């Protein structure tokens, strides 16, 4: 089960990256991680640095993917973003991409929320 969830996550991240690229974002880094946490995608939208959290779920019986991104998770991403920027003062924001997959890994819904923090 655990590996299955991880696979869902990986495919979700790939789907999100493609969607962002379609919107004209430039992907800078994927899975930027250290002992404090992980940022799924770091991209650039025109002049703005965008930190993206991707949440993919199979089915919605247990709730929407949006519900799974809570205050604590956003706080962690924020902290990670600060680490990544190393004190540099550049315009930035945090986005969330919520993806619902069907049993056969088809995309049911992909929603991109900008500036959620």
């Amino acid at each position, binding site marked *: 089960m655990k590996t299955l969830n991880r696979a869902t996550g990986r495919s979700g991240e790939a789907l999100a990256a493609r969607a962002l690229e379609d919107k004209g974002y430039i992907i800078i880094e994927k899975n930027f991680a250290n002992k404090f946490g992980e940022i799924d995608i770091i991209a650039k939208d025109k002049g703005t640095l965008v930190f993206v959290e991707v949440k993919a779920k199979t089915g919605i019986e247990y709730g*929407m993917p*949006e*519900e799974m*991104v809570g205050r604590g998770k956003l706080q962690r991403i924020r902290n990670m973003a600060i680490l990544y920027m190393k004190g540099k003062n550049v315009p930035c924001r945090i986005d*969330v991409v919520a993806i619902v997959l069907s049993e056969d890994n088809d995309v049911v819904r992909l929603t991109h*929320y900008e500036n*959620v923090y």
Partner: protein
Amino acid sequence: MLVKINSVANVGLETVPVDVEVDVATAGFPGFTIVGLASKAVEEARERVKTAIINSGFDFPPKKITVNLAPADLPKDGAAYDLPIAIGVLIASGQLVPPKELTEGKMFFYGELSLDGTLRPTRGILLLALFAKHKNGSMIFVPSPSAAEASVVSGVTVYPVAKLTNLFGHLMSAEPITPLAHTKYKISDDEELIDLDLKEIAGQEQAKRALVIAAAGGHNVLMWGPPRTGKTMLAKALPGILPPLTDAEALEVTRIFSISGLLPPGIALIKKRSFRSPHHGVSAAGIIGGGTNPVPGEVSLAHLGVLFLDEMPEFPRSVLESLRQPMEDGEVEIVRVAGHVRYPASFTLIAAINPCPCGYLGHPRRECKCTEKQIAKYRHRISGPILDRIDLTVLVAPVEVEKLSITKEHTTNNLTSKEAKTVVVKARAIQSKRFKGTSLYTNSQMRNREVKEFCHLTPEAENFLKLAAEKYDFSARSYMRLIKVARTIADLTAEDTILPVHMAEALQYKQLT
């Protein structure tokens, strides 16, 4: 879409309108935030509202929902905002079309939601009803278990709401809820209101007489006697002989109980005078009222009733001293960070004291084992200023075995509470006539000026008092106190002037030194 729902906040006994603004945004990351100085209970409304909406068969919009409770600087507490928030979410998400009256601000919503969408009893409904009354054509939607308390208020339409789905049906004009009929409150002078009849208490004629005087003149009583002599029983009998609550008084008492959440579900009005008997472990905040959002304490719950302090010397000194302000002013003012509130606290104090720590000092058959020092220390616990506010002191001696007999009828022991009440009511009528146009209600409230004006003594009575004053070395205050008590005794027999016989009886209740 933004909607505004009307609700209220109760600050003490005052009611402040609160606008519950609910916005369901079309864009933005889904979430649910409540702002407007909300306490933990209000914050948690998030989960209750969300689950209740889903469990009632509606959709909870996966959108960015912001709730603002205005005015923003007033701290809000309690779960009463669940209902207005839920209605706001349903309207703002387009599931419910608001009726005209709602947008005009004539509908008030107030109540706590349970997770399954039913409404739970909520405190302070009566205050909401009284507030809404001032606005013409108001409708209030309140939980049906607590709706009865609002039904005594005329000029406001009360809709008892059992479930969120019922309210939805009503607002959509599909299944209207029948408004609660206005109940005329009539206080009946029923015997069933009496918990403990005077007749049930064996012996203690003097103490019973003191209670009648106390009830008639609003005097505070101190009962002094060994344990197990019936002090508690006597105190419990007092509410039964107090004059019935008037309509206005009943409403006043009910307001206090409503805000405390002590009104039993389904009870519209408190008709009985309260009898509060806090344990001596009570804190000062418990007796006076307190808390971050100050709630009424025992003195306010005993408003227009009886506050009974059993084993008075066992109460912490701070608690006893805090009684001074309410005993003087008939109200308490509580100051906290959240603001200051005023609660009425006009009560009759009944205190029971043992003569010494072991309790048997002066007992006819048992020996007291306390030392002089112990006794002095024990008595010292009650300060002079408190004793000064007590008009009647009565010795409650052990009952003679003969009077306990259940087969023999005692001619001296046949005063029923009903009879006593009739006498008390008459005496009170005389007083209200006397104090017409003043701020006083009872003889006990008279100050020196009124004592001089209203208490006419016959020369014999005055002479008698003078002799007693010389013999016992009365202070000016006890002198006045005796005249006040004598005034009440004279009122009990509908006598205009105070006769020596009244004075003599009053002297029996003088303070012990």
